[in-house]
């Protein structure tokens, strides 16, 4: 249906009836090309091609914004300056925008009461809202404690054998904090001072894609003719199921890893996380996890590219890591 032609005297009303659209423009095409070049550049050559794309996008974006706002910039809004001089007669502003009250505008009683009511309400509301909102958000971020997990004496781990270890990280939380790791004793390795120290590979089973539990690809438990080891430590019962992994696989979306946790196939964005550890009075103690981009080599000689702990699905290296500049507080 055709809209009615606005007659001169209904011009003001017709403003609300019609969609007000900016004039057609071609600049968005150039802007879109710039974005495409940026994205392609991220794959091919982030430094050079992405920069060119960014320049194209910024230039065309600026032209587009200038074009779109031309109308606004032409119609300059005339604002009468506020006048405070006593006795100065307020000139009638164009378009009848003159203040209703007289030239002198002391704060009247009603204006003061209005402001006081709103201000007092805002103060009371803020006093209530701020601590409550803090209680909603902050406990999940502050005082994140590190939980050390005692896995028992290191002598029980035969050299070079893998175990699936399950343990409770925080006895106060109970079963909900039960975690799984793949543990291998690598023997000893020389530290920076040339002293021989124990070496363990302790890989978290949290998939680096979206956090599902990865499984060892290979025989485990009774099939191997080996017994499941059980230990009772400060963290409660800890269980070690012997396993011979050819790698690890995730049941959720098919991510695959090699035995050192390097991604070999599927959607994961990095290698499997690892647990830090210390040997305390001859006992293996797990510390916090850290993230790993990839591992070169194996066993005690493995070179691990370490990063601080990131969530699953978050890149730790490459341009995609720029998406995660600020990590929440961690233990």
């Amino acid at each position, binding site marked *: 249906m055709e809209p009615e032609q606005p007659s001169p005297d209904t011009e003001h009303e017709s403003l609300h009836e019609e969609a007000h659209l900016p004039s057609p423009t071609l600049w968005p095409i150039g802007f879109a090309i710039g974005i495409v070049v940026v994205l392609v550049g991220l794959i091919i050559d982030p430094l050079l091609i992405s920069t060119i794309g960014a320049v194209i996008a910024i230039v065309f974006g600026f032209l587009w914004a200038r074009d779109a706002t031309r109308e606004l910039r032409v119609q300059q809004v005339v604002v009468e300056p506020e006048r405070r001089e006593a006795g100065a007669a307020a000139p009638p502003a164009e378009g009848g925008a003159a203040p209703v009250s007289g030239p002198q505008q002391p704060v009247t009683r009603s204006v003061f009461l209005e402001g006081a009511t709103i201000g007092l309400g805002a103060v009371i509301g803020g006093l209530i809202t701020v601590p409550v909102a803090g209680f909603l958000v902050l*406990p999940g971020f502050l005082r994140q404690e590190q939980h050390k997990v005692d896995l028992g004496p290191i002598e029980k781990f035969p050299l070079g054998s893998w175990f699936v270890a399950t343990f409770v990280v925080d006895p106060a939380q*109970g079963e*909900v*904090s039960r975690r799984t790791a793949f543990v291998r004793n690598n023997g000893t390795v020389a530290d920076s001072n040339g002293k021989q120290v124990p070496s363990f590979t302790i890989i978290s089973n949290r998939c680096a894609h*979206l956090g599902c539990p990865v499984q060892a690809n290979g025989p485990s438990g009774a099939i191997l003719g080996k017994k499941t080891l059980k230990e009772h430590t400060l963290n409660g019962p800890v269980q070690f199921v012997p396993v011979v992994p050819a790698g690890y696989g995730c049941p959720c979306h098919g991510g695959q890893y090699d035995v050192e946790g390097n991604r070999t196939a599927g959607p994961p964005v990095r290698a499997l996380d690892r647990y830090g550890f210390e040997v305390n009075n001859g006992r293996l103690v797990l510390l916090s996890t850290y993230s790993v981009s990839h591992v070169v080599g194996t066993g005690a000689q493995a070179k691990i590219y370490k990063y601080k702990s*990131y969530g699953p699905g*978050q890149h730790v290296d490459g341009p995609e890591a720029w998406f*995660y500049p600020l990590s929440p507080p961690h233990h």
Partner: protein
Amino acid sequence: MATPRRQPTKAQIRHQKMEELVIYPIDWLEERSGLVGGIRYFLFRNVPSDVNWMQTLGSAALTAFLVQAITGVILAMYYVPSASTDPATGKPVAWESIVNISDHLTLGWLVRGMHKWGASVFIILMFLHMGRVFLFGAYKYPRELNWIIGVLILLTGMLEGFTGYLLPWDQTAYWATVVGINLNGTAPILGPWLAQFLRSGQEIGLETLPRFYSLHMLILPGAIIALITLHLYLVVRLGVTSPPWSKDAAGGEPVEVEEPARRPGLTRPVPRTANGAAMQAEPGGRD
């Protein structure tokens, strides 16, 4: 009232008394609140003459939401949102309470089933309603804001689905939520913060389940109810759209809307003064 020509029969008198018995309380309420008139205004408003059955999908989605609200409130009386382990059985408390609802409590299986399947029905009906609005062009001026509010209702409904999925606290619930939270965690910049907020910590723990429960049954339903109220207010204010094939010209002369019945009296005759003019009674007026 006109003077009756004949004495009314006993049946007529009885009928009249019954009517008064029903009408008097309604009139009492209406005189003091205007609520009856408001409900009449809401329910008996004019709609285009050629409205379509497809235009009942919004009401259907509303009904599905009400079913979710009612069954949810009752399920909350039996469900225990605790991720801790029952020392007697070694099983999680929340999961045990779900088993209790489904397997032991009378009709629990039915109400839980209504809530579980009704959740999908609610989402499907919202999508069908959205499709109807899109195909009818009912999102156009002046109803754009109602489309936006509708999208917010859909989003809140999906958040209800996400938070409700964890509550059974079984393997499916747990790992689906792990994946769902980690998906949020991959969002740029604020993703890791959002994930940690949802978990209330670095890992899913004892606080996560009660947090999802509170979101699921207090915060999000409150938001949906507020949004539905706004949505319906705009439907009433802007009216119902004609179907695209309607012969009534869109934007044509608006039909004269009859003012809904107002005070005084929904059904009572208007009291008249001595000179026959209708009296204008002011509600609560004492002068």
